[in-house]
């Protein structure tokens, strides 16, 4: 009996902490978003924060910006990540030397850099007085520094998109690569004998095989970008801001009475993420593209 329960008891402190901080925080946020806020004397449950939020144009603008930035970031990261993974796969197939390992490590490098540092690198590189604009001005590609397009702290969110595309592409390739490495080495021979060149092999075999993993990886990037805070805070504009930043602004700049609205933003973010997850799960099941493996 003791032997059986021992592992669970040993795990209890870690599990307890996670449950308390994560689910506790989420539950506390849910209660406060519903107006239950004893600190300011509110003990009733009501949907005022949600209705106010859904009526405000700021929320909708923020939501659309968040969706746009998250969608573009994840698609660009997905495409880049897929290209990197396929290149590494083909490189590995053709070259047996240690060169592949060097490229592997090089492409994985962005994974080791924290998001905040990644965001700061984008600032230094892409702001109008940044490294890139100075180089372009020096070589005469642009007349002067202000001619460089506004890519950082811009209303469209290009700075945020660039950061996530750069930062998450290796993550996508890392998720796809093990799937690609399961592609039977002889399949390349089979396809060649039957008339498939490199591009046909990628289109007919590699892409369909990696699609499920790619979808999941891209969705993870989407969800992460959708609810991330630090990069939009650093590289975004004050208005419209992305939802996590909007929530932070409501939480810190307003009064205690604004906090239910700030927390309602977070709850809506969580609900939207869950709904999107269900949609992706539904499609990945329906495509059934993993059919036949193993």
């Amino acid at each position, binding site marked *: 009996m003791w032997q059986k329960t021992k592992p669970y008891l040993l795990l209890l402190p870690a599990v307890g902490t996670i449950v308390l901080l994560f689910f506790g925080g989420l539950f506390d946020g849910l209660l406060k978003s519903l107006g239950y806020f004893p600190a300011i004397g509110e003990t009733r449950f009501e949907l005022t924060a949600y209705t106010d939020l859904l009526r405000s144009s700021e929320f909708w603008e923020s939501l659309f910006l968040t969706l746009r930035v998250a969608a573009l970031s994840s698609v660009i990261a997905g495409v880049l990540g897929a290209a990197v993974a396929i290149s590494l796969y083909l490189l590995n197939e053709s070259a047996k030397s240690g060169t592949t390992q060097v490229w592997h490590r090089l492409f994985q490098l962005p994974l080791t850099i924290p998001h905040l540092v990644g965001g700061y690198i984008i600032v230094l590189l892409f702001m109008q007085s940044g490294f890139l604009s100075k180089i372009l001005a020096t070589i005469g590609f642009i007349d002067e520094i202000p001619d460089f397009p506004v890519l950082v702290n811009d209303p469209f969110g290009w700075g945020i998109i660039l950061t996530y595309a750069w930062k998450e592409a290796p993550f996508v390739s890392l998720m796809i690569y093990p799937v690609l490495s399961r592609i039977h080495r*002889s399949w390349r021979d089979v396809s*060649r*004998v*039957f008339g498939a060149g490199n591009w046909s092999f990628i289109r007919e075999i590699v892409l369909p095989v990696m699609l499920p993993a790619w979808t999941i990886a891209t969705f993870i990037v989407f969800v992460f970008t959708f609810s991330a805070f630090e990069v939009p805070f650093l590289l975004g504009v004050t208005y419209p801001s992305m939802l996590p930043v909007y929530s932070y602004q409501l939480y810190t700049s307003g009064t205690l009475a604004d906090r239910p609205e700030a927390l309602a933003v977070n709850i809506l973010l969580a609900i939207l993420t869950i709904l999107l997850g269900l949609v992706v799960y539904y499609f990945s099941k329906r495509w059934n593209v993993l059919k*036949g493996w193993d």
Partner: protein
Amino acid sequence: MSSLRIINIEKQYQQTQRKSDPAFSLQPVGLTINEGEFFSLLGPSGCGKTTLLKLVAGLLQADNGEIWVGDANITAVPPEDRRFAMVFQQSLLFPHMTVEDNVAFGLKMQKVGKKQRLADAREMLEHVGLKGFGLRFPDELSGGQQQRVALARALVANPQVLLMDEPFSALDPSLREEMRELLSRIQKQFRVTVLFVTHDREEAFQLSDRIGVMSEGTLLQVGKARDLYERPESRKVASFLGLKNSVEGIVAAGRFISADRSFDFPVEETIERGPCHLILRPEVVQLKILKEDPLEDSIQLSGVIQQLRFNYGFYTGTIQVGIYLLDCSFTSQQAEGLVVGQEIDVLVNKKDLWFVA
């Protein structure tokens, strides 16, 4: 379709990191496979037969030599443009495609319209006995069915040459037999030129018009199954074809004398003098019936039965003659009166004696 000519093709692999393992090299091979012929490369694992097959397919680059199909030199043509087809040891079907999409893959690469290629794929599936299986996925088929699909995929594109790399070796014996019959029937029906690689003598003998025996990167002998079996050109060929009865000796002064002198009999003048090996096929060693006088054209040997094994309707006996152990075949009737340890006399017709250097 045209004949396939392999002209002095050779391949040297790079030295492995372990210096003790010598790098494998395929010695220059010259071979012509006629249109519609079923040709097998037979040899033990690692003898270079798959290397030769891959060189023909274009999956490996040859160091020297040429490959011709009819009047076209295809040595530098990439595999995707050779219009060959290949069946591998494993079926290697694409798991994300249905059976009919797998079969139609080659046609798709040849830009054949969807309707046409699927119709062709279904027709070919019918030929291999898989009518109605088109919409299944490969994991819903048995190993034998998967290999049938691989065969259909190879045949549907009407290849100039069909290459087969031990395609039935992963199947169980009864299924293997069934697949051989299917392949034999289909090959005759479609008149496709086949280059088949196997280490299974029985398989090669059953299917092939001609066989090339390979060993250690060298093509030792090419011929029809019976010629190879009855007239092997070397001990290696004889040994690989299961002819274990090899007696070392010398031909001198019109006689063959074994090293231990237990074999000593006159031979024809045409037999080359000098050291040689006598090869005796098991079925030519006949039990001498008591009081029967040996015929003039036979030699008589005396030995002791060391072993007697029942083997599919007949008996295989091992007889010790001098220092040599000879395998021979007895009918059940002959074997009835025999016991291990018994001294017996056997006869071999002189025309069945075969000497190799």
